[in-house]
Structures are given as C-alpha cells and as structure tokens.
C-alpha cells in the first residue's frame, strides 16, 4: 500500500499489516457506542435508583449478573489455560494465539468485575470485602483471586502495549517488554495458581449450600465436587471461546490471522477435557440423584417447576455437552471450520447454561414444605447492563487488533 492511500493512522499499525481506513474504524466504534450507552444508562439506574429497578428479589439475590459473571469467568479461562500450555507445558505453537487469549481474558475478567460492581449496588463499599474479609467464605477467596488474577492479566497485556510499533521505539519500553516476556512463565504460573482457586471456589459456592439439595454436593476435605467440576468445565470451554472469538475477528477482518494447526491443538485439548468433564459430571449427577432421594429430595422435585423441566438436564449434558465433545474429538470434524465453530458455540453455551443452573435454578427449587415456586426473568436493565460489557469488550478487541501486534502469523498469512 503506498503512503498516499494508507490510512491516516497507518504509522501505528503493527509492522507489515493492513487495516481499514480510519473513518470506517471510527464509524464502527461510534456504532458500538449506541448499545454501550444504553448499558451505561442501565448501570447508572442501578446505582442511582438501587437494585429495585431490577427483577432481583429476596427469592433471587443471584440473577442474570451472577450467572453471566460465572459464565464469563469460565470463558476467560482460555487465557490462563493457554498460558499454562504455552509457558509451563511448553507447547510452542500456542505462542501464536496466547496474546489474543490474554486480550480475551482481560476483557472477560474486567467484565466480571464490572458486573459485580453493578450487582453489589453500592460500589463505593466494594473494598469492604478486602478490608473486612470473612476468611471462611468461598466468595472472599473468589474476590481475592479474581482481583489478583486481573492484575496478572494486565501485566500479561502490558508487553503487547509496549510492543506497539511507536511505543517500542523508546528504549526503556522496548527493554521492559523484553524482560516481561522473560518473566512470563512465572507470571503464567501465578495465574494458574489463582485461576485454579477462583474457578473452583465459584463452583464451591453452590456446592456448600447444605440446605439446598439441588446444589449441595459432598466432596474432598473442604471442597465439594462442584469445586473440581467447575475448574474442569472452565478449562474445557475456555480454549473453545478463544477459537470462537478468533474466528469472529477473522471474519470481521476478512483475513486469516492464525494457522489451522494452532486452532486444531486447542480444539483437540478442549475436546479431551470436555469428555473427561462429561464423564465426571455424569458420575456426579448419578450419585447426587441417588443420595438426594434418600434424604427426602426426590429427583422429580428438582425438575417439577416450569421452565426448569427435565429438558434442562438433557440440554446441558447432551446437546451442549456430548455433541461438541464428539465434534472436538473427531479429527475429520475439526477440519471442517463450520462444524468446529458450531462445536465451540455449543460448548460455550453449555458452560453458560451450567452456570445458570447452578445459581438461578438452585434458588428456584423450593426447599421448605410451605415454599412455593417463584419464577425469575431478568428485565431490560439487567440485560442492558450485562451486555454493556460485551460492547466494551468488542471495542477493546477492535482497538487491540488495529494497533497492537497480537497475531504473530498475520503477516505471513496475508503477504
């Protein structure tokens, strides 16, 4: 591209890459700001008029925000798990996608914290959980680990900013990026430690609810089985989310950004982990059904309330579990891009459904003889303030893709 036809901001692009004209990029950002502003209004309503503008109530203190929070954190597991595979297990090919996994991770964890900021109603008291920490609470552990892991992700994101073409010209920033890369295995190991505990503790929260047979599980030492199932499900779906977002970015950019063999490695690992998860989840479900029945909570009582019928279980484990697992395990199916993306979509939808079941459906099942079933449907304020972080995430991906050297194979794939 000659200098006359190059976009106005072409000096900021990664070396040897092409991007659209600046006006189209700004128009794209402006379009995204429309729904984003609706989300901001919803968020301000929650803060200004309190949570009674939502459909949360005493029956459902956990609603869409918490379910989405848990889902987003599970999807963000692609960052720590890809980092673990790249820097600890030393799968070298993953260096071509680990940067993008970090970007996705930063967005997911920032979104999760943002949603919690809306959900707690009084964000000015958000620091109470650190200063007045209840050290016996799994949620405190989650808050600590998520905050620390977000810091880890920001440190992992920092070299990408420092390697931006113009910033990297400055000697100090060039050196800083280089030394951060050298320290990355240690940073990734800290990330794995933190992620292991907060992914697990998110599962531990419903698992320790002794008075709710739908969610309660026995376990190992202080950890219910849901602790381990949540970790496993997160690392099984996180890489699929990374593949999915990479594919969407490729479609918008109208070019290949990552080689197929890199995607295939992630998909294969994801498939094997998903199979392991499904086996353990099935054993857990069978054991849970048999023990809950013995203590007076028959299986049928869990699925007696519309819309939470037996279809929920069939959908979660069957359509959104077994089908993507079969696709991800089959080399022939993985080679077909459309089928692979379908598997990724089903896998990610499955994780969201699992998190919804473990939070919202757990609260929906009546536990006392005089209790009656009360339904919950999120209202527009909850939807808009949740989607706010999706739009913000799209903006971050767009800016990162345009200006930062995220895809190391882009130049080679698009000469």
């Amino acid at each position, binding site marked *: 591209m000659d200098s006359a036809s190059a976009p106005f901001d072409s000096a900021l692009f990664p070396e040897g890459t092409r991007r659209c004209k600046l006006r189209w990029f700004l128009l794209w950002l402006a379009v995204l700001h429309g729904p984003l502003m609706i989300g901001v209004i919803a968020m301000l309503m929650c803060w200004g008029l309190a949570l009674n503008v939502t459909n949360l109530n005493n029956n459902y203190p956990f609603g869409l925000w918490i379910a989405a929070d848990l889902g987003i954190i599970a999807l963000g597991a692609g960052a720590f798990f890809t980092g673990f595979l790249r820097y600890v297990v030393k799968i070298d090919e993953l260096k071509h996608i680990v940067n993008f996994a970090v970007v996705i991770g930063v967005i997911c964890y920032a979104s999760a914290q943002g949603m919690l900021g809306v959900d707690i109603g009084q964000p000015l008291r958000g620091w109470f959980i650190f200063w007045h920490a209840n050290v016996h609470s799994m949620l405190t552990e989650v808050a600590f680990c998520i905050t620390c892991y977000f810091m880890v992700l920001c440190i992992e994101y920092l070299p990408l900013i420092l390697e931006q073409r113009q910033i990297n010209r400055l000697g*100090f920033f060039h*050196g800083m990026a280089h030394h951060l890369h050298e320290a990355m295995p240690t940073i990734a190991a800290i990330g794995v430690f933190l992620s292991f505990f907060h992914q697990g503790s998110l599962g531990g929260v419903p698992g320790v609810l002794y008075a709710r047979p739908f969610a309660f599980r026995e376990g190992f030492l202080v950890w219910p089985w849901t602790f381990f199932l949540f970790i496993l499900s997160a690392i099984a779906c996180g890489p699929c989310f990374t593949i999915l977002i990479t594919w969407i970015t490729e479609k918008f950019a109208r070019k290949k950004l990552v080689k197929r063999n890199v995607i295939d490695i992630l998909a294969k690992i994801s498939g094997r982990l998903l199979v392991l998860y499904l086996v353990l989840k099935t054993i857990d479900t069978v054991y849970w059904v048999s023990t809950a029945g013995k203590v007076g909570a028959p299986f049928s009582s869990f699925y007696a309330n519309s819309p939470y019928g037996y279809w929920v279980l069939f959908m979660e484990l069957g359509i959104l579990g077994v089908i993507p697992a079969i696709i991800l395990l089959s080399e022939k199916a993985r080679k077909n891009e459309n089928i692979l993306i379908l598997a990724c979509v089903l896998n990610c939808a499955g994780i969201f459904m699992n998190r919804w079941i473990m939070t919202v459906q757990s609260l929906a099942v009546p536990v006392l003889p005089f209790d009656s079933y009360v339904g919950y449907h999120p209202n527009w304020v909850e939807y808009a303030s949740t989607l706010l972080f999706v739009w913000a995430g799209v903006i971050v991906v767009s800016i990162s893709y345009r200006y930062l050297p995220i895809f190391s194979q882009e130049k080679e794939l698009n000469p």
Partner: protein
Amino acid sequence: MFPFAFEWANDPVHFVFMGALYTVLICLVIILHYCGIRAFLDLICKKKGHDEHH
C-alpha cells in the same frame, strides 16, 4: 485486612488466607520492579556503550 486491624485473629485460617494474598501481591510487585529496573539498567549500559563507541 492487615494484622493490626481489629478484626484480625491469630489463627491458621487468617495466616493462610491473607498470607497467600499478600504473597501473590508481593510477587507481582517484585516482578514488575525487576523488569523495570533491568530495562532501566539496559538503557543506561546501552547509552554508555554508545558514548564510548563514539
């Protein structure tokens, strides 16, 4: 929560829980400072080498 806060109790749970938090935070601060100092030293050494060369 620091050990001098009134809610602090000298029990294993507090030491493990808060100890792990502060260990992670200290590790991150050390890593960032280490990289920053190394980058700064690289810059100084490079400049010196550059001056000597000329």
